[in-house]
């Protein structure tokens, strides 16, 4: 699907086993996963490691956030050199907002699940998006509660059957549709069984100006991997309909491939990076918000599994921009900038006399 190759001059000169900032892949690894063998979350973790390595992100600049659940445990399994905060169930967005306002130079990477985001955390999720905090927000969506052994979540299919929980009587929430409605300007859906697509979407997400939401269907091999489940590997492999095909070009890279005029649409990201979209017949234009909402609604109504970049825009300022934060992070301001003078206090107190 990628239409470009990594062809920058710098990349050609460095040793093969390190990235642009001289780090090896091992520098991006985490502890060994304790999730079930074959868990979709582990393949997403692997792509997080790959992408951060390939983009040459400094691990010390990345901060990992998560809530509670299987998905939220996974930040321990990648980027050990990055700070991490495993917060409360459904409350990762608020913690991330505080931390990333305290230091807006950090790169925020949130990992959550469908229960953590769609059920207990739906409020904080939508408000995070409203404020457009600059962070990548991954939902590892398996339509089931794993850690508590198999209950329905807010994204479980209507009519879905689980061993202990019975039949789900309620329709699922579409997190991508909700995200767009709440004002999100980077919304994508992918499938853990399609690592290349996960990787390209993730790269683009790191270049986004505000909150980038990626809903990744990530099968739970233990509790929700039956063929008829829309969150299973077999369903994903047979039903995955890509709505578009694209590649990501970092801001310092040159585009190396040839393409016919009209074959590719270029979308410039906020940091100067570009997304090159293949203009296939009927492919979805992710800059068209109405089309994205329509597409999602149709997919939801017909239980279609669509993946790809659904919506992208860069018009809204992010939270730190709205607050006009200065260059030095709030957390690193010295006392001289934080405690006003004794004279200023006297002046205020005189007004109270």
């Amino acid at each position, binding site marked *: 699907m990628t239409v470009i190759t990594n062809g920058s001059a710098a990349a050609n000169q460095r040793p093969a086993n390190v990235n642009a900032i001289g780090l090896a892949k091992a*520098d991006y690894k985490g*502890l060994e996963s304790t999730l079930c063998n074959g868990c979709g979350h582990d393949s997403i973790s692997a792509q997080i490691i790959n992408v951060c390595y390939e983009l040459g992100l400094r*691990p*010390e600049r990345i*901060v*990992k956030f998560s809530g509670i659940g299987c998905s939220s445990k996974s*930040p*321990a399994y990648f980027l*050990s*050199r*990055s*700070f*991490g*905060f*495993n*917060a*409360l169930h459904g*409350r990762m*967005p*608020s*913690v*991330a*907002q*505080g*931390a*990333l*306002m*305290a*230091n807006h*130079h*950090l790169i925020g990477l949130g990992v959550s699940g469908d229960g953590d985001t769609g059920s207990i955390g739906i*409020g*904080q999720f939508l*408000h995070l998006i409203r*404020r457009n905090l600059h962070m990548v927000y991954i939902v590892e969506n398996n339509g089931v509660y794993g850690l508590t052994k198999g209950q329905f979540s807010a994204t479980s299919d209507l009519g879905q059957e689980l061993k202990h929980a019975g039949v789900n009587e309620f329709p699922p929430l579409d997190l991508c549709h909700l995200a767009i409605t709440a004002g999100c300007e980077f919304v994508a859906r992918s499938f853990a069984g399609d690592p290349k697509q996960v990787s390209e979407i993730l790269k683009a997400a790191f270049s986004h100006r505000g909150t980038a939401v990626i809903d990744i269907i990530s099968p739970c091999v233990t509790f929700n991997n039956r063929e008829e489940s829309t969150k299973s590997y077999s369903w994903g492999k047979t039903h995955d309909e890509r709505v578009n095909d694209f590649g990501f070009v970092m801001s310092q890279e040159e585009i190396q491939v040839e393409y016919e005029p009209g074959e590719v649409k270029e979308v410039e990201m906020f940091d100067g990076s570009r997304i090159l979209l293949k203009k296939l017949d009927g492919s979805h234009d992710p800059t068209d918000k109405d089309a994205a909402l329509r597409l999602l609604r149709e997919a939801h109504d017909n239980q279609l599994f669509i993946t790809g970049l659904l919506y992208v825009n860069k018009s809204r300022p992010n939270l730190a921009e709205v*607050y*006009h*934060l*200065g*260059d*030095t*992070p*709030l*957390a*690193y*301001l010295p*006392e001289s*900038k*934080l*405690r*006003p003078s*004794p004279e*200023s*206090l*006297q002046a*205020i*107190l005189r*007004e*109270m*006399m």
Partner: protein
Amino acid sequence: MLEATKLTDPREIQALAQPAPVASSAPIVNDFSITAATKNGSGSQTANLTLLRALFRMGIPVSGKNIFPSNIQGRPTWYTIRVSKDGYIARSDTTEIMVALNPETALEDHNNVAPGGVFIYADDIKMPLHRSDLHYYPIPVKEMARQHEADPKLRTYVANMVYVGALAYLLGIELGEIEAALKFHFKGKAKPVESNMRVVRAAAAWCAEHLTKTDPFRVERMDSTRGLMLIDGNTAAGLGAIYGGVTFAAWYPITPATSIADALNEYLPRLRRDPETGAPTYAVIQAEDELAALGMAIGAGWAGARAMTSTSGPGISLMAEFAGLGYFAEIPVVIWDVQRVGPATGLPTRTSQSDILKVYWLGHGDTAHPVLLPGSVAECFEFGWRAFDLAERLQTPVFVLSDLDLGMNQWMSEPFQYPDQPMDRGKVLTAEQVNATRGFARYKDVDGDGICWRTIPGNESPFAAYFTRGSGHNERANLSERPEDWEGNMLRLKRKFETARQLMPKPIVDLDPEAEVGIIGFGSTDPAIREARALLAQQGLRTSYLRLRALPMNDEMTHFLAAHRRVYVVEMNTDAQLAQLIRLHSPQDAPKVRSANKSDGLPLTAKWVSAAILSQETQR
């Protein structure tokens, strides 16, 4: 005897017989209470604060208590100003001068005036006036408002200035100080000052022409407020936080805590812009709820900001889970609880001290938090900045327990003291330090005080990062379910709490070596307790007094209990919560601990406190 009151035709008022004035006794100067009974949202607060400040500017000790409803417009509200030449500023339980502008409550207000008192009322209120022990002054409030304000929409507001003028005439409040107070209120804007003053002058002139003063109440200029300020505790708290270097605040609107955030939003832009770049050195976010408010503050505190939130009881309930996380993950954050009456929605606009037990142990499992207990607006300021030092030193949530009375009413105070020590940012490792040791153990008690070293995101050392979690962890912050890791960590947290015990502000103790009886209190009850001690002394009962300023308690409490035979714990809640904590702190002295507790939503009065103690003393 009484009939329902209602607005009536002015002709009916004409028919009402004026009662005979009571013979005037000797003048009563600077020692009485004035209550203005009005409707919420009518703009009476401007009139009340103007009166309060004008009296204060005349050098007379004053206090103001706003007894208001949970309502935007129309429900009854009362504002009581106590004028006290002796400097007593607790709520008084008598009203000598009543200003009745609300027909709905006029009869009740009328009955509540102390014998020999004054009843000033809008003459369109139909009153079956029947008390022979009051002085009555009907005032044509509506008519004067109509004459002096062309805009009908503004007439209700202007009407309140009529009673300011009437009181100025009847009591002798200087018009110049009323004008100065209006200038303060309107931040110097000439137009509203002038329009309000016009009504004040006209009302005073009308009273001079039409009323004969028969009552004995007067004010006279004194010199007892020189150098003092009038300020509310929530503004003081906000200012304290600003001088404490707050960099991040998240909050959700709730009475009576909202004005802390208001103060931050008012003063931060003025005081805390980077002089070189003009960029703000702070961020204040209105969260979607209190869960998010504390979540944001905890995220910010973890990332190195001086972070706070402010709320009241219901918000505290919502914050419980995050409070436990903050305790266990050891994250500095400051949480203000401006208490109101609960449980449930309770009485949102009335004061109480009923969160102390809940806040002390907020969270599930074995949590306990340091709690600061400001007893004055000056301490709201001081604890406003000190709370950050304690939170960062102790790496834990620090609560500050104020209440509606302290937070929202105006209090006289000495000017606040500028922080007398540099900021304490606690045990934070730099990149160089972490590099030198090639890593660190986040939860290892290196120094023996239970407080571990931390790193802050943005630290560029490859060895600086750790994984913060609410689940069980070992010294290196890795997930652990080993029993010895869990227990060792919890016991270390208890050691840290012992360190906190020594770092928290000590109680203020006034020890009478002759006294068998001790009084313990905290927070806004301080003026009532001080005055009660004077009343008790008049009755021959000498008392010592310990004002608690923080939890956990320390040896000072133990010594105080040991030094007295009986100790009365004065507090505004139904369950005598502090008394229970004191019994836990000193089981050996538990039998000595008695309660003088009350919760009806109103600030305690000295008379009630002294009676509650005396009755138990005489029953002995």
